[in-house]
């Protein structure tokens, strides 16, 4: 008989290898994985949190997770549930995730930073990921995906992306 905690370990390891389709970060580091359960010994139930309700990558992530987990020898089937409670926030992104995002020019608010429901238009609270200057401004509160905004650095004249942090 296979130990249930061993199965959970192999599921978690597999989830760590699944990259978000739109960000250079695994879904675990991004904080999407809320719960992993085994039902009747060989059915995996993975509970995930969407970043934004309109994220078009949700179906792709569902497929990636289902396929990867069902490939595990101990698992016969996998179900993915998306829930809204708890709400995903940028606070869920791990340090490793933050480092990987930053290396790709995407910044993430620190826990103590102000919330962005009220989008600051001219403040420069976010340091440029390339040159670390604080001479940055919001260029557009809407970016290439629903969870990102576009900032511009006056110092090094680069655009960069910032993960939105909402008060949920």
């Amino acid at each position: 008989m296979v130990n249930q905690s061993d199965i959970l370990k192999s599921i978690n390891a597999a989830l760590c290898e699944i990259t978000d389709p739109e960000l250079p970060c695994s879904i675990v580091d991004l904080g999407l994985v809320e719960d992993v359960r085994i039902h009747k010994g060989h059915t995996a139930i993975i509970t995930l949190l969407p970043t934004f309700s309109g994220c078009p990558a949700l179906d792709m992530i569902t497929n990636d997770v289902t396929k990867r987990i069902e490939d595990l020898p101990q698992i016969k089937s996998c179900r993915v549930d998306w829930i809204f409670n708890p709400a995903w926030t940028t606070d869920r992104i791990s340090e490793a995730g933050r480092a990987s995002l930053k290396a790709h020019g995407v910044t993430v608010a620190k826990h103590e930073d102000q919330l962005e429901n009220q989008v600051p238009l001219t403040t420069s609270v976010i340091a440029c990921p390339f040159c670390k200057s604080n001479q940055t401004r919001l260029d557009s509160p809407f970016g290439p995906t629903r969870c990102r905004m576009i900032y511009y650095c006056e110092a090094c004249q680069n655009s960069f992306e910032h993960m939105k942090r909402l008060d949920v």
Partner: protein
Amino acid sequence: MTNAMDMMLNDLEALLVLKLADDKLFLGHIQSDWTGLGPILEEDIASSSMAQDDLSHALVLYEYLGSRFSIDPDVLAYERLPSQYLCCDLVTVPDDFDWAKALIRRWFFAHYAAPVLDQLALFNDSDLVERCRRLRAEESLHISYLNDWMQRLSSGSKEAIVRLQNAIDFMSDDARMLFELPGMILNVDRPSFDGREELFNEWSSSTHEILSTTNLKTNITLPTTTVKGGRNGVHADHFIAQLTEMNEVRCKDPGAAW
């Protein structure tokens, strides 16, 4: 199926959810017409992103209703009779690709959707509450972005102000009908159930907070309860045109999937 639909359309709480879902479905649809046509690149992306949000908000609400009444969310979105849609004319009236009209429509609507979501988040149903709280946080981004445009344009050129005012005048009658409620909700013997006046007051005060810093004027009052419009399934011709366009693929190839 028909029974499930009838049950939903006779459920007072469900109707409050459905009218917002229908508004968002049609707003997201008509707003998508602007993709590729925004006046500047950032606005093009913003406008398309907000349309994407509205469509997904409609889906999140249809999924809630679908799970409660055992109806496929796609059937809710695409396969009702025109008289069973409860959206108001504001979200289907053509903007003639006048960007001022598109902006005013979205601005009027975002200030309305936020307090509706606040109301729905007070219901005694954790599934609905969790969904609405999430959508409400996303709606805040729309409001803040659209307010910013209103303030920038209204402090801009004379032409910008004239065009905004014309757009406000054009959209006002339809904006007023946001606050129409399905007859059965109005007739219900629970005075505070509809929340109609509270909604209107909140909408008025949050829109006037912005307008008071500009030279723009509105004159919108709560519609009388005898006027019947979209919330009671009585739609203008442009609603049918939008519905037909939206359903085209579904009608040609029922059950098609990406």
